[in-house]
C-alpha cells in the first residue's frame, strides 16, 4: 500500500515518518547514555546527602542545574526543577499570583498561549483575579502597543510564550521584557518550544520567570524547569509542599536521572542550535516549496520569517485536516497541540489569528527536528500532495481507519 506513494525513490525512508517534533522529541542517544547510570548503580536519593550514594546523585543534579542555567544566561540558583512545562507554567502563574494576591490582581496573557497557561489563568479568574487575553495579529504575533495599553496599576504579571507550539512564531521577547521592566510588572515566558531553537538570554530579555520542558529538547519526559529571577527577586508560593527541596519552592524527591537528562539535552541543544537551525530551515523550505508547487493555493499560518526553522503550519483550503491525516497513515503529523489533538475543535490559536473555522480546520502542523532527513521530507511532500489531489478529485481511499488497525 505504501509502495504506491513512495515508488521511484531509491532512498525510501523508514515509515511512518515522524513530523511532530512540537508534540514531543525523541530522546537523543547521548542524553540516554548519560541518564542510564543514574537508574542503575548511582540510584541514590539526591536529598540523602549524608552518604556518598546520595551525594553523588545530588552532585549530578547540581551539574544539570548549572547546564540549564548556562544556556539561558541564568545563575544555577535560579533554576527550579519541576515535572515538566505544565507544572512550570502553573507554578509561575499561580505561584506569583498567590504570593502577591493582596497587592495586584491583574494578569495579561496572549490568546495563543499553551493550554496550561490559559488554564492557570482561568483558575485564577475563579479566585477573583482579572485576566486580559491579548489578541494576536494575522501573523500570530502580539502587538506591543496593545500590550502597553493593557498594563495598568493593578497588573502583576505578563505571560507571553517565546515560541508558539502550533505555528512556531517567535514573539518579540526583548521588547516585551523591556516594556514589563519599565512598567514594573513581572514577565513570564513559556519557552518550552524555544529552548534549542532560538537563543534565550534571561537578562537581555528581562525575563523574570521562564518555563522549560525536557521532552521538547530531546530530553526525557517527566522533567522540566522554571527559571525564577533572584535580582530583583521574584517571590512565589509553591504548588507542592513537603520535604522542602528546591529551596522550598518545589518539594518532592528530585529524579536524578531525569535531571541529568534535561541537563545534557540543554547543553546539546545549545551547542547544536545554530547548525541545526540552518539544516532544518533548508528542509522546511524544501517541504514548503514542494507542497506549494503542487498545491498552489496552500496558505502558511503564522509569520513567515519570525518563526523557528523546524515548524511549518499550513492550510489546505477546502480540505478537512482530519480527513487529510486519515489519508496519510504513514505520516505522524498533527492538527495542533498534542494535548487537544484528540478533540475535533479547530485550533484556538489559528482562530485567534483570524482564520475562520473552515481554514483553521484545514490546517496541519509539520514539526521537523534533529533526526528529520531529506528523504523523509521528499516522501512527505509527495504523500501529502497526492492525498490532497485525491481528496480534491473525490477519489481518496476511505478505509484509512481500517488500514491503521492492521499495524
Amino acid at each position, binding site marked *: 500500500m505504501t509502495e504506491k506513494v513512495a515508488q521511484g525513490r531509491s532512498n525510501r525512508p523508514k515509515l511512518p515518518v515522524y513530523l511532530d517534533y512540537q508534540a*514531543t522529541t525523541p530522546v537523543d542517544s547521548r542524553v540516554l547514555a548519560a541518564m542510564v547510570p543514574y537508574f542503575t548503580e548511582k540510584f541514590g536519593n539526591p536529598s540523602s546527602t549524608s552518604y556518598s550514594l546520595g551525594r553523588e546523585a545530588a552532585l549530578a543534579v547540581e551539574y544539570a542545574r548549572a547546564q540549564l542555567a548556562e544556556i539561558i544566561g541564568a545563575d544555577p540558583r535560579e533554576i527550579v526543577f519541576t515535572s515538566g512545562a*505544565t507544572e512550570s507554567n502553573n507554578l509561575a502563574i499561580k505561584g506569583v499570583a498567590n504570593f502577591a494576591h493582596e497587592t495586584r490582581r491583574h494578569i495579561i496573557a496572549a490568546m495563543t498561549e499553551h*493550554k496550561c497557561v490559559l488554564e492557570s489563568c482561568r483558575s485564577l479568574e475563579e479566585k477573583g483575579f482579572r485576566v486580559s487575553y491579548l489578541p494576536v495579529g494575522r501573523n500570530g504575533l502580539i502587538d506591543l502597543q496593545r500590550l502597553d495599553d493593557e498594563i495598568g496599576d493593578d497588573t502583576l504579571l505578563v505571560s507571553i510564550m517565546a515560541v508558539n507550539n502550533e505555528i512556531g512564531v517567535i514573539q518579540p521577547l526583548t521588547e516585551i521584557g523591556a516594556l514589563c521592566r519599565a512598567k514594573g510588572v513581572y514577565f513570564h515566558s513559556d519557552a518550552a518550544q524555544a529552548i534549542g531553537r532560538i537563543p534565550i538570554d534571561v537578562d537581555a530579555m528581562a525575563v523574570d520567570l521562564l518555563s522549560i520542558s525536557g521532552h521538547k529538547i530531546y530530553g526525557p519526559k517527566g522533567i522540566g524547569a522554571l527559571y525564577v529571577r533572584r535580582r530583583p527577586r521574584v517571590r512565589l508560593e509553591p*504548588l507542592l509542599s513537603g520535604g522542602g527541596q528546591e529551596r522550598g519552592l518545589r*518539594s518532592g*524527591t528530585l529524579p536524578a536521572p531525569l535531571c541529568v537528562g534535561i541537563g545534557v539535552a540543554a547543553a546539546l541543544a545549545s551547542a547544536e542550535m545554530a547548525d541545526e537551525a540552518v539544516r532544518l530551515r533548508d528542509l522546511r523550505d524544501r517541504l514548503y516549496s514542494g507542497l506549494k508547487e503542487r498545491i498552489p493555493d496552500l496558505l502558511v499560518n503564522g509569520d513567515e520569517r519570525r518563526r523557528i526553522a523546524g515548524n511549518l503550519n499550513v492550510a489546505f483550503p477546502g480540505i478537512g485536516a482530519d480527513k487529510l491525516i486519515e489519508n496519510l497513515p504513514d505520516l505522524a503529523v*498533527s492538527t495542533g497541540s498534542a494535548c487537544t489533538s484528540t478533540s475535533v475543535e479547530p485550533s484556538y490559536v489559528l482562530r485567534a489569528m483570524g482564520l475562520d473555522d473552515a481554514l483553521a480546520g484545514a490546517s496541519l502542523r509539520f514539526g521537523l527536528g534533529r533526526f528529520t532527513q531529506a528523504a523523509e521530507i521528499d516522501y512527505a511532500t509527495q504523500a501529502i500532495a497526492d492525498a490532497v489531489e485525491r481528496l480534491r478529485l473525490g477519489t481518496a481511499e476511505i478505509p484509512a481507519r481500517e488500514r491503521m488497525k492492521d499495524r
Partner: protein
Amino acid sequence: MSRHRLGHVNAVYLDYNATAPVRPEVCAAVAEALAALGNPSSVHRFGQKARRRVADARESVAALVGARPAEVVFTSGGTEANNLALRGCSRTRIIVSQIEHDSVLGAVPQATRIPVDENGIVRIDSLETTLAADPEPSLVSVMLANNETGVIQPVEEVAACAHAHGALVHCDAVQAAGKIPVDFTALGADFMSLSAHKLGGPQGVGALIVRDGVEIAARLRGGGQERSMRAGTENVPGIAGFGVASLAARQALEGYSRLTALRDRLESRIRTMAPSARFFGQGARRLANTACFTMPDVPSETQVIALDLAGIAVSAGSACSSGKVRPSHVLQAMGASDAEAGSGIRVSLGWLTDDVEIDRFLEAWSAIYAKAVTRGLSSPLPERMETR
C-alpha cells in the same frame, strides 16, 4: 551480585525507605520507553504506542493495590500525590496523624493533628472525638506505614470511623506498597498515594488512586491529561517503569518476609551490644524491612557520618529535609525525649539486602559504639544512665 550491580563494590545500602535501587527489568522497560518516541496525546501511531504503554502500566499499578485502572492518576511522585489529595479534595477541615510525612504536613499546615501511642499507632479514640466534636466536612489522612519506623496504621478502622462521620479518607501508602499487601478497596480509603521509586521503580513518578465517583480538583491544569485531574504530558518511560516495578513488587511480596529475619537478627544483636538502645515500633505490627533505634547518647548525625565512612548508607530519618538534621517529629510523637529522638537512626532493607550486608552494618555500628563508649560519650549499661 547485589553490591556489584550497585557499582560500589564495598557499599552497603540500607536506606530503602529513602529510595530503592531500580530493578533490572524496570531499567530495561524504562530504557526501552526512553528510546521510543511519542506523546500519548497524539493521535498518530507513535502516540497510540505511547498511550498503550501508559494503559498497561495503569493496570499493573492498579493491580498492586487492588484498585481499578480507571482510579489511577499518575503524578510526578508521592509528594505531588499527597498535595493533590489534600488540597484538591475540597474539604474544609483536614485531620492528619502526627506522624505523617512532611509532604502531608506541609501541604496542610492548618490541619488538626491526631496523636499516636508509644508504639506510633494513631489513636482512633482521639480521631473519633475530633470528628464528633465538629460536623464540618472533613478529610482524614493517615499513612499506611510510617517511613521512619515502618509501623503499620489501622487504616481500615480509621476509614470506618471517618466514614461514619461523613469524612473522606486519604491514605499515604508510599512506604507500604510493595512491602505488604495493599487493598485500596478493602482499606476503605477514598484516596491513596503511591511512589514508584520506593518500590524499585524510577524516581519522578507516582500516583494518586482516586475512588471512582469521588471528586478531586486538579492542581496542575492544562491539556486535560489523566481525565483532567492532572495535566502535563505523561512521563511515559517513568510510568512504564512504575508498571513493571509494580508487577515485580507484587510477585516478590510473598518472599518479602525474608527481610523480617534479617531485620530481627540486626535488632537483637544491637540490643545485645547496647542494652540501653531504644527501639521504636517494636511492639507494633510493622514493615519487615524497617528498623529504627538509638545509639545511646550519640547524635544521629555522628552515626550516619561514621557509617558513611565505613561505606554504609543509612539515614537519620526522612531523606527529604536535606542537610537539616533535626529531631524526628515521628519519634517525638511516640514519646521519645529530644535526646532519644536525636540519637535515632533508620535502617531499611530491601530486595537486594543479604546477610553479608547486615554483618557489615553490625560490625561498623559496633565499632562506632565502642569508640563512643571509650570516649565516655555513651554508657553501655542502662543503670549508669540513671545515675547521671
